[in-house]
Each structure stands twice: as structure tokens, then as C-alpha cells.
């Protein structure tokens, strides 16, 4: 107890010392140095992995069972040359994009209706609130039973996973929309349709894109899991398949592929989102 204030004081002193000189433009002055540090950090982590696995280190965690960096790189190079790899990749992309696209359309439509129509919210709202807490992946058995093909089942799971974050964000955005925009369009002679198309749809875009960003993330989680459980092709299926035949470097090839795909799709959503919401006031911009 008695030492605590002293510790805090020391921490505070250290904090002010290290922060004070960096206050204004310091991080911008040395972008090259910052990048060197970032790259070095990643290289160090990869190096550590190589050291741990190549020397069969066993410190409770059993690194001797895992492939080395060189083994993974070799396997990756080999896999990239096979047709299977690209088929799997294409299959997974088709599944996620189909499921995600359906979820985006359905999520935005029902989100607007839930946010703006009381009668629709009364009929449909309780159903969404009851089903929302169930993780999409828990529905896999139902999807297998319900859909005639595994393919449709996997797309359905992906759809379900992405649907809820999109719907919830859209609903919230539709409810939080400032009424003054609607009022101004109506007093200019706009109809209900004009309000929907010219105020609601553009106005909720920032919120919708928040939902799309979350949605694409959970969609990947679910498409990979569903493929591991019931797929015949796909990155998730191949990764699990590699594990069952003890091809551990290939497992890592799959994991890295999933990471790259996830990053690329999220970045695409983010980029499109920024482009269509350029009108938002942003911190760095000055107003006249």
C-alpha cells in the first residue's frame, strides 16, 4: 500500500519524460526509421519462430512438433504451383462473396425497415433478437440437414454470420439519422421515396460500412469453420485436410492464405467505405 504512490510517481515521471519530447511532429519527422522498426519487429518474430522450431525447443510448449519457417516457405512455393491451391482459393472466395453479398443486401434492407417502421419492428424484431445471440457456426448441423447441398449450407452459414452485424449497424444508423435532413427534403416537396433514396440511404452509409467491416471478418471465421466441418474444396477444408494427413507445413500454408484473404477483403471494404463517406467531417481537415 505505502509503496504504491511512489511507484505511480515514478511511472508518471517516466511517462512525462518519454512523452514530452515527442509531443508534436516527432513521429512524422522520421517515417523511415519507424518503418525500419516495424519491419525489424516482424523479421524478429519470424526469426524467433525459426530458432524455436529448427532447434526442436520443448519448453512446455512443443515447438518440435511444428514446421520451421523454411519448411513452410518451401511448402508454400510448391503449393502455389498446383492447380488445387487456386481452386481452393477461388472456391472459398465464391462462398464468402456470395454469402456476404446476400447478407449485405438483406442486412441493409431489414435494418432500414427495423429502424424506420414500427410495425415491421414489431413483427420481425423479436425474431432477430432471439436468433442473434446464437453463433452462426452453431447452426452448421441445421444447415447440413436443411440444405440439399453442402455448398448452399456453407454459403448460408456465411450469410448468417455477416447478416447480424450489418443489420444491427444499419438499424442503429437509420434510427440515429438526424431528422433535419428528412425535414428539409420533405419541405422541398420530397415524397417518402425521395426521403428514402436521397436521405436515408446516403445518410446511413457510415454506419452500414461499420457493419460491413465487422461482417466480413465474422464471415471469414464462419466460412473457414464451415469448410473444415463439411466442405469438399476450399482453403478451410484443405487446411484441416493437411492436418489429418500430418502435412504440417501445408497447414501453415492454409493459415497464411486465410490471413492474406481476410486482410485483402477487409481492406477492400474499408477502402470503399472511406470513398463513399468522404463527405463526413474528419478530424484532420480544417473548416473555413
Amino acid at each position: 500500500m505505502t509503496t504504491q504512490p511512489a511507484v505511480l510517481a515514478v511511472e508518471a515521471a517516466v511517462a512525462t519524460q518519454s512523452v514530452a519530447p515527442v509531443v508534436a511532429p516527432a513521429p512524422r519527422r522520421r517515417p523511415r526509421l519507424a518503418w525500419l522498426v516495424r519491419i525489424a519487429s516482424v523479421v524478429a518474430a519470424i526469426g524467433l519462430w525459426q530458432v524455436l522450431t529448427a532447434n526442436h525447443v520443448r519448453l512446455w510448449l512443443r515447438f518440435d512438433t511444428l514446421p520451421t519457417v523454411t519448411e513452410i516457405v518451401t511448402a508454400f512455393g510448391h503449393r502455389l504451383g498446383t492447380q488445387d491451391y487456386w481452386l481452393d482459393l477461388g472456391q472459398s472466395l465464391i462462398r464468402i462473396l456470395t454469402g456476404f453479398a446476400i447478407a449485405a443486401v438483406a442486412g441493409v434492407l431489414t435494418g432500414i425497415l427495423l429502424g424506420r417502421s414500427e410495425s415491421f419492428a414489431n413483427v420481425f424484431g423479436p425474431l432477430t433478437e432471439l436468433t442473434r445471440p446464437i453463433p452462426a457456426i452453431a447452426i452448421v448441423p441445421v444447415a447440413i440437414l436443411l440444405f440439399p447441398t453442402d455448398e448452399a449450407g456453407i454459403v448460408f452459414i456465411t450469410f448468417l454470420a455477416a447478416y447480424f452485424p450489418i443489420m444491427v449497424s444499419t438499424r442503429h444508423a437509420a434510427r440515429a439519422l438526424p431528422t433535419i435532413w428528412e425535414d428539409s427534403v420533405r419541405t422541398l416537396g420530397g415524397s417518402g421515396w425521395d426521403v428514402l433514396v436521397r436521405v436515408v440511404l446516403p445518410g446511413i452509409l457510415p454506419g452500414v460500412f461499420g457493419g460491413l467491416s465487422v461482417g466480413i471478418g465474422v464471415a471469414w471465421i464462419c466460412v473457414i469453420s464451415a469448410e473444415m466441418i463439411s466442405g469438399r474444396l476450399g482453403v478451410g477444408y484443405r487446411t484441416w485436410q493437411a492436418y489429418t494427413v500430418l502435412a504440417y507445413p501445408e497447414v501453415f500454408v492454409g493459415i497464411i492464405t486465410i490471413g492474406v484473404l481476410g486482410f485483402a477483403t477487409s481492406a477492400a471494404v474499408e477502402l470503399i467505405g472511406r470513398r463513399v463517406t468522404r463527405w463526413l467531417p474528419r478530424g484532420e481537415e480544417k473548416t473555413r
Partner: protein
Amino acid sequence: MSAVGMALELHDLVLSYGGPPVVDGLDLSVRPGEILVLTGPSGCGKSTVLRALAGLLRPDSGRIEADGEPVVTTSRDRAMVFQDNALLPWRTVRSNVELALKLAGRPRAGRQDDALRWIADVGLTGFEDYLPKSLSGGMRQRVQLARGLAGAPRAVMMDEPFGALDTQTRTSMQRLLIQTWRAHPTTVVFVTHDVDEALLIGDRIAVLGRAGQPLRALLDVPSPREPSVVRSALRAEIISALDHSELVS
């Protein structure tokens, strides 16, 4: 242009937002083509009356008539200019004005030229492609003025349109308003709590009482919008009416 401005009539009007009435039993008629200023203490319901006139708020009881027709909803004939942030932020200056022209039913062909002319009329040439976020408050209100009048509405409700501006900008906006209104005559109902603004632009000035109380005063402004006329007596009268409504509560 057909008849200059529309007549607006309020009969025994009761308005509320679900609770106790904000406006109770108001009778008021707005003459075609005049600028009627509504003023009163804050919370007296002047903006509420304006919303009802625009058709954005349904009366609890009583009648609102526009040229003898009951007002049931919004119409392109009764436009509204808000205090701030009413421009669609994802549309440029030009696009905001063009939307008003489109909603007013103008054919696509002339819309762009009309919009540019309106932008020039409010002194914003060169800012056509700016988004509202890159404009100052005064410039945004210029756009709102253009947008509100571009559809040639027969009445315009103005809800403290210059209330958020600094004194200097406000003075130039008042001049611009009068100038634009002379070029495009229409009925204007103008809400403000600034007595000098009321005296400067109004044909008549209505002083509302506290929430739920009757009209305190309805005063004619002799030779309106004539800057040389001294209006200290009228000013005193309005201020006493305002004070009176202040004290009664």
C-alpha cells in the same frame, strides 16, 4: 410568376409534442407576399408554429389553411430554411440546389443553369463543387437560402436562419435576404429572437407569449425595410411586449 405568395391562416391552433400544449388557441393570418416576423421568449413555441405551417407537425386541434386549403402535410409550396446543418452533407453546393429544383419538378434540362444562377445570386460562385463541411456557417446559410427559394415556393418558413452567425455575417445575410426576396417575391414567415432583426426585415411583427399563452402583440412596421427610418418607439413597444410575456410566467 402567378400570384405573389400564399396566404396562411391559423385558427384556434393547439400544438404540442405529446405533453402540455406549447401553443394554445393561436389565431394569426399571414398576408400574401409579406414578411411576418414571429418573435417571443425562448420556448414560446415560435419554431413549433413554423413547423406546423410547413406541415411537419400536425396540430392537436384547430386549423391551418394555405390559400384556403387545409394543411395536412409538407408541400413544395411551403419551403423551410433551418438554422444550420440542414444541407445534405454528401451533396455539393450545386447538387444541393439542384435537388431542390428537381423536387420542385423542374425539367432536367435547365436545372444545372438554374442552380448556377442561384449560387451566383447568393454570392457563392466558385464554391459550386464544395461540400457543406468545407464552408463557413454563413456560406452554408447562403446555400440554404438559395435551396429554399430555388423551387419558387409560395411561402417560406425561416427558423432563425441567421441565429448561429456572428453579427457582421448576420447583417450581410439580412441584406441578402431582402434583396433576394425582392427579386423572387413570396410570403415569408421569419422566426427570430433578435428585435433589431425583426424590425429590419419584417412587414409585421408578432410577439408570442410564454408557452400556452395568447399572442402578446401584432405590430405593423411603417415603411418596412427602409433603413433610414428610426424605429425606437416600435422597438420599445416590442421589448415591453416581450418583457410582459416574460413577467407573466
